[in-house]
């Protein structure tokens, strides 16, 4: 444990050199972490009258392992991705800082250190979001404002809890929570939730997310959307499982209902936005907000199965979102643009990237053989089997967003890799090795988790038992719900893969010699053959009909309301500052008026 902290503190000083150094620092921290997980001693740092405790428990092990594993791989990717760019030292400093702060959050046992690392994570990721220097749409300030709102809401909650139970330890809050008054519970609960849901991009507070994810460099977005948002989930899980479950009955109902529906609405709206996006990065940004919506719903429902599914989805989401962002980053680096409408047919030029993107897309859509399905299945089961009826209608919402997910998943793959081969993209080559290796590795883990999800269930189960659930049952590969129905992933996986291989072999072998490859230009176009330069790819407004169908829902975006509110405030402040007229005499007048008022009412206030 000490080693892990020592390692990531050490990397604080080395990042200035270059991404290779930051990769070594992160991977060394990862190695130390994985070897040292057994000891659970607590490291304390004392500040005046309270101590900051750092300790590792079963629950935080899950997140820590996820953060360490994926950030090590992504930093390997980072070396290649960032090799050409300028201001490398600056970028790597913040890159490593963000990862270090995530580790800090996961290790923190008390709220103050939790908050400290939370804020470090915020501003270091802020510095990366504005790294590209494009500031139109004020994405940097928007991100900063929202995370400040979240951070400060949490600070307020921490401060209030301390005034109630006079200690910062998370454990103390958990067992002292039932003793608070009704109003107090609600206030603390809501404040904490605001703080966490800003990071987890839940609907009303998600406005910053799409631009922030798509504007920052791709190697960081993999971390940003994959892991940073999970810190919000990390906090939310603590609140939901261990704190709210003990709260008075009235409260739990509100939290689980409201947040569940918020998650559902986020999922649907974000998916709709994702479908109509033109740029791959924005599409993925909205899609990761949608996935977060699932996870939040899972957590909010609160049954054993749904929390298990939420945590499982959280890890799987980090994996496939990492791959997809890295893939888009590779395409951006090789082809120079990520506009879905211009790109096409990179499959022949970037096969490995396509392979990992395909696996990630299948997992994202939740299609059976892979891990995505496992998470989704558990989520649906938990909702169908749950007692209160509103969850049943929520199932439809979630299902709508997951079927719509197929749309944007296909659009992404088709836009980038399939479709007509255009001469302008002929120069594109496969991404360099350090980019491809992490992607393929993550894809293989996804496939593995599809076959044996138990590998991930075990740590999650221990984590949940640590947080408050009793005897969370799990099997290596079969999923079951409280009604006793099971899906045996081994059979599913086995049958799908064998059939697929048989089908593929059959179709390739059958009169092998006579099939010949022909370019995408030579196609059945009833007579007139398209010349080379004629672009036949149908990618512009790919889902126009779908867009027209959901038109009424999409008219006003949340962004519109926030900008409106912002301008309103701005003009109010403009009016307020007029009070300083600049004329010395008016200032003297203010003094005299103030003096007279005070003299008159002095009696009452200073009795």
């Amino acid at each position, binding site marked *: 444990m000490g080693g892990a902290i020592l390692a990531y503190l050490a990397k604080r000083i080395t990042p200035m050199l270059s991404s290779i150094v930051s990769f070594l620092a992160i991977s060394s921290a990862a190695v130390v972490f994985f070897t040292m997980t057994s000891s659970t001693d607590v490291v304390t740092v004392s500040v005046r009258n309270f101590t900051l405790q750092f300790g590792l428990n079963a629950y935080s092990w899950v997140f820590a392992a996820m953060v360490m594993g994926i950030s090590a791989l992504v930093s390997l990717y980072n070396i290649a991705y960032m090799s050409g760019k300028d201001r490398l030292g600056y970028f790597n400093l913040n890159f490593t800082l963000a990862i270090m702060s995530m580790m800090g959050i996961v290790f923190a046992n008390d709220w103050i250190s939790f908050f400290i690392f939370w804020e470090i994570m915020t501003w270091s990721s802020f510095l990366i979001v504005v790294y590209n220097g494009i500031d139109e749409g004020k994405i940097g300030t928007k991100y900063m404002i929202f995370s400040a709102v979240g951070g400060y809401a949490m600070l307020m909650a921490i401060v209030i809890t301390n005034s109630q139970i006079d200690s910062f330890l998370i454990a103390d809050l958990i067992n002292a929570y039932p003793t608070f008054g009704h109003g107090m519970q609600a206030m603390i609960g809501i404040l904490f939730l605001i703080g966490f849901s800003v990071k987890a991009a839940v609907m009303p507070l998600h406005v910053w997310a799409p631009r922030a994810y798509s504007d920052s460099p791709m190697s960081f977005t993999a971390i940003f959307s994959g892991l940073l948002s999970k810190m919000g989930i990390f906090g939310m899980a603590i609140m939901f499982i261990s704190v709210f479950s003990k709260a008075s009955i009235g409260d739990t109902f509100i939290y689980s209902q409201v947040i569940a529906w918020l998650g559902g609405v986020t999922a649907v709206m974000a998916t709709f936005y994702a479908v109509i996006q033109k740029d791959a990065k924005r599409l993925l940004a909205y899609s990761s907000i949608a996935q977060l919506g699932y996870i939040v719903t899972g957590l909010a429902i609160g049954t054993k199965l749904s929390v298990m599914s939420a945590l499982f989805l959280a890890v799987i989401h980090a994996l496939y979102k990492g791959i997809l962002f890295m893939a888009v980053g590779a395409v951006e680096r090789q082809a120079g643009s990520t506009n879905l409408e211009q790109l096409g*047919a990179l*499959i*022949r030029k970037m096969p490995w990237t396509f392979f990992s993107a*395909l696996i990630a897309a299948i997992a994202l*859509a939740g*299609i*059976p053989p892979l891990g995505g*399905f496992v998470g*989704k*299945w558990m989520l649906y*089961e938990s909702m*169908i089997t749950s007692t209160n009826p509103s969850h*049943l209608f929520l*199932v*439809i919402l979630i*299902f*709508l967003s997951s*079927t719509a997910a*197929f*749309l944007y*998943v*296909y659009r992404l*793959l*088709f836009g980038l*890799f*399939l*479709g007509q081969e255009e001469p302008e993209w002929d120069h594109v080559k496969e991404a360099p090795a350090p980019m491809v290796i992490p992607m393929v590795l993550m894809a293989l883990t996804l496939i593995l988790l599809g076959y044996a999800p138990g590998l991930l269930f075990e740590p999650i189960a221990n984590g949940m038992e640590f947080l408050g659930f009793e005897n969370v049952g799990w099997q290596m590969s079969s999923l079951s719900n409280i009604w*006793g*129905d*099971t*899906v*045996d992933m081994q*059979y*599913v996986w086995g*049958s*799908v893969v064998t059939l*697929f291989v048989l*089908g*593929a072999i*059959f*179709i*390739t072998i059958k*009169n092998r010699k*006579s*099939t*010949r*490859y022909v370019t*995408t*230009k*030579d*196609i*059945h176009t009833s007579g007139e053959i398209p010349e080379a330069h004629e672009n*036949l*790819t*149908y990618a512009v407004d790919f*889902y126009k*009909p*779908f867009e*027209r*169908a959901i038109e009424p829902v999409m008219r006003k975006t949340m962004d519109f309301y926030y900008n409106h509110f912002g301008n309103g405030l701005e003009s109010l402040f403009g009016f307020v500052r007029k009070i300083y007229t600049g004329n010395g005499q008016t200032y003297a007048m203010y003094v005299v008026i103030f003096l007279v008022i005070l003299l008159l009412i002095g009696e009452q206030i200073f009795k």
Partner: protein
Amino acid sequence: MEDILKLLGGAAATMLLAFVVGATYGGLVRKIIARTQNRVGPPWYQNFVDISKLYMKDTAVHHGVMQHIGPAFAITASVTVLMFVPVLREGGWFPWFENLNFKGDIIFLIYMMVFGSLGMALGIGQTGNPNASIGVSRGLSMMVGYEIPFVLSLVSVMVQTHTTSITGLMEWQTQNGWLMFEAPFAFITMLLAILGMFHYAPFDIAHAPSEIASGPPSEFGGKYLAMMMTSGSIFAFAKLVFLVDVFMNGASNLVMLVVKTLLLYMVPVLYGAVSPRYRTEQAIRYLWGWPVFFGIIALIYSIYI
């Protein structure tokens, strides 16, 4: 060792049965539609002839690896759905047919049905044919349309019977009667959803022959087209069997099976034969209109009975 053999044999038998029945249904449908447009129409075995001709063809043109993977996905999906659906109740004299149904459940099957079309879409994307891509985009948008009522009805059924596995559903139905009558609204929603699922007339925008030259498979020839057609027919049969199992408590023997599936199959076919073609957004709006309305009633009904 013995039961693996039994399993394999059963699987092979089911696949053959599905292919045969599916293809004959295809032929029948072509005949019925022709009859409604008062022309004679091809003989009922026309599908078998097309498929076998296509398999025999020598030259086949392909545009890259995905064109192989596409049909492979399709055949995998249809056969897996077939595997995980109890074709005949175990009481019947062909015990081999209930194969792996105890391993999967309804949500898994919903996803498998989607798996096929998504896989094929990827294959089609590789071909680069603009008509094909337009077809795919319409098909997928339509899919979102009909999935909702489809899921609505299944969820309400699951909630009513408190089980998510098909075998569980069938046991429930043996005790208290066919779900067709027990959950009437769910059945109505399902009927409306089927219209969309089988891509017949009102919702055949994806394969619209006149506009986009038979849509997605327009680039597939020879063995690829053959593979697509076989998986298409198996898939049709598998879906029908699934629906029969869910709403009419499956069939104990082959004859009952054929009768029930044919009855169910006639609903979209006949409705399709007489109706014009919806534009995609009209289709989606329709599918999210009445069917969803009935679905919600079904859900409420299932919660409170």
